[in-house]
């Protein structure tokens, strides 16, 4: 597939790549290094770490350990980074409601401020992926929908289905639907690899490509029904169900009317 290499030579590719590389380095550096420092301006940050630690001790430490070192039922959080916390807690997956196969997306337990504090606390433990807020805001400008679709089908569709509706994994696990995911959450998931999902490293799927993927997903979220009711966008199974119920049902109904004597 020669065409896939073409956006290497896209006229924005060089500058954009540089910009994002700088930005990513900058953010990572600031999150990783700024937190342990106790400069005069870092009073707010320190309090945020403390606040985050308090929330952590109340809500997370029973599984993840008092120092986030992990336990028999939960992984260590040292080095997972702020992005991971923001994704897991911000989408309501953590804290888990029960010990099921998989943490489900649900209503977040904590307010955005509390999530932010938790993220700062976990990020202060060791360097890890930072929350990519500002990078993602620009997906509309820097992403390419069609290329994003190509990347999505190569890297994501096998689990999340061709239209991002999600799909089954082994032993009761599943890849969730992406229809409610925000651009930031999608970005966080790609760089942190939550739960069953693998990590998509920046050298393998570049930040620019990630933005294209996000742009495609956003377009899929808003995809209008070009041919009528979408029926879940899961392929031929729902089509088969419809023809065996509504289709043949309507026609049998009419046949019964046709074969009944009029009065």
């Amino acid at each position, binding site marked *: *597939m*020669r*065409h896939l290499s073409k956006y290497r030579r896209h006229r924005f590719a060089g500058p954009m790549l540089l910009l994002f590389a700088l930005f990513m380095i900058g953010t990572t550096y600031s999150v990783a290094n700024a937190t342990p420092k106790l400069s005069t301006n870092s009073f707010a940050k320190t309090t945020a770490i403390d606040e985050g630690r308090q929330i952590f001790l109340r809500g997370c430490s029973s599984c993840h350990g008092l120092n986030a070192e992990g336990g028999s039922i939960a992984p260590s959080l040292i080095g997972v980074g702020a992005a991971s916390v923001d994704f897991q807690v911000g989408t309501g997956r953590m804290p888990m409601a029960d010990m099921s*196969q998989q943490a489900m997306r649900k209503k977040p337990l904590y307010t955005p401020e509390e999530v932010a504090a938790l993220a700062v606390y976990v990020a202060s433990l060791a360097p890890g992926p930072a929350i990519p807020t500002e990078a993602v805001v620009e997906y509309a400008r820097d992403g390419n*929908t*069609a*290329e994003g*679709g*190509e990347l999505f*089908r*190569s890297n994501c*569709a*096998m*689990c*999340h*289905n*061709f*239209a991002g509706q*999600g*799909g*089954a*994994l*082994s*032993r*009761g696990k*599943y*890849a969730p639907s992406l229809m409610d995911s925000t651009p930031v959450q999608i970005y966080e998931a790609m760089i942190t690899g939550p739960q069953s999902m693998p990590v998509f490293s920046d050298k393998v799927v570049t930040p620019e490509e990630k933005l294209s993927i996000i742009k*495609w997903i956003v*377009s*899929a979220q808003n*995809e209008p*029904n*070009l*041919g*009528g*009711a*979408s*029926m879940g*966008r*899961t*392929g*031929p*199974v729902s*089509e*088969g169900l*419809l*023809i*065996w119920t*509504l*289709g*043949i049902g*309507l*026609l*049998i109904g*009419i*046949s*019964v009317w*046709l*074969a009944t004597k009029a009065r």
Partner: protein
Amino acid sequence: MKKSEKVVGTVANYVDERTGAAKWLKKNLNKVFPDHWSFMLGEIALYSFVILLLTGVFLTFWFDPSQREVLYNGSYEPLSGIKMSAAYASTLDISFDVRGGLLMRQIHHWAALLFMVAIVAHLMRVFFTGAFRKPREFNWILGIGLLTLGIVEGFLGYSLPDDLLSGTGIRIAEAIIQSIPVVGSYLAFFAFGGPFPGEAFIPRIFTVHVLLLPGIFLALITAHLMLVWYQKHTQYPGPGRTEKNVVGYPLMPVYMAKAGGFFFIVFGVTAFIAAVASINPIWLYGPYTPAQISAGSQPDWYMGWLDGLVRMAPPWESYIFGHTISWNILIPGLIVPGILFTAMALYPFIESWLTGDKREHHILDRPRNAPTRTAIGAMSLTFILVTLMTGGNDLLATHFSLTINQITWASRIGVFVLPPLAFVITKRLCLSLQRADRDLILHGRETGRLVRLPHGEFVEVHEPLSAEKAYTLASHEQIPALDLPLEDGAGVRRPKALRAKLRARMSAAVTEQIPKPTSEDLKEIEHH
């Protein structure tokens, strides 16, 4: 004489002098067709075929059956600039750049699904009512042929757009061809013009899909209908209906209006579904490349049972003398379907061998009056249903919070356990329905009115059945089991005694019935 009548008369005279059609037409305009909703199922299949021809011709005007690589620059934004085959690009063009093109594509695909649904429903009607019995065995076999061709034609049709989902289907079809012992890889290379996917397959299946198979379809459907016409339609049992007559409405005008109108109804319903419900949204699937795949890749429903069989297959492969035999593909992909379709085609002959019944039948059986046949039907349907559900096991898993592994294991066991269970339950059910019929004829309908007898006992008043109803319930005949002597008169074992014994035993099972009431039974009851 009015002017218009004069014109028609002139034309009719002109045609008849050259064809002698009047005699044939006179006879056939009076041809009688029995009316029943279940007799419309075959018509639905016929009319969806006509719809498929009409919409299919429309689609060929724009479809480019080529795997040549092109850059898409049509109006569907999320794919613009993507490299794809001309087949996929032209399908996108039909969908978005030809007005009404998407509607025609959707009618075509929905009609294809409906065609297969109607064929299967029609097959069930014919099977459960015993309409396949002499003299209609040929038509049964033609029907099985049409069903098989329909599956192939449907598969080829949805493979044409060369999208990610259908390409995956072709990939699997290639693996099945490749798994055939000895000649598999040669056949695959011939079919694909080299290694998979190549650039030859879609142009080739296009010709097969639009020319070869529709031609065979037309020939088989014509033969199927001519036989129905010539042998006259079967009818349900009822007063005045015998093996020697057919009761219904004449071709002209009633049947013409109903059947002709029903074509428009089938077209209208298909168009309605195509207007409101999306089907095969290939623009969402993306173009095919072998390195990509979507979660939940399933075939259309009439292939789903095959896919389910493959999903539940055990991981068996044999390695003998430097050769590989893939039982995990051969068993579910070729052997089991082969056995199923052969058994289905031979069923009329098997049944008549076991009942010893070689007479013509034009009155249909009520399913309960052929308990073993009905049970065999229920067993087969259960088998297909289990495999069909396994074909969607990943969607079942996500929608009902199950695990793929549980469903697969349940189906691996269920496919052996549930069909025999369905057989036993259905047979018992039929026999008890026969018992209920017998009671109904002998004792009449329960009215729910209680009457106190002079000596104080309460009894429910039973209303006797009308003569028509009683006749409908009891007009069928009950064939006794074959009596096959194992020894000849001198007490010497006959040759093939073992086979005869087996046949007699099976015959006894097939003909198991609740004795139906006779006129004598009724008379006897009247004396009370």
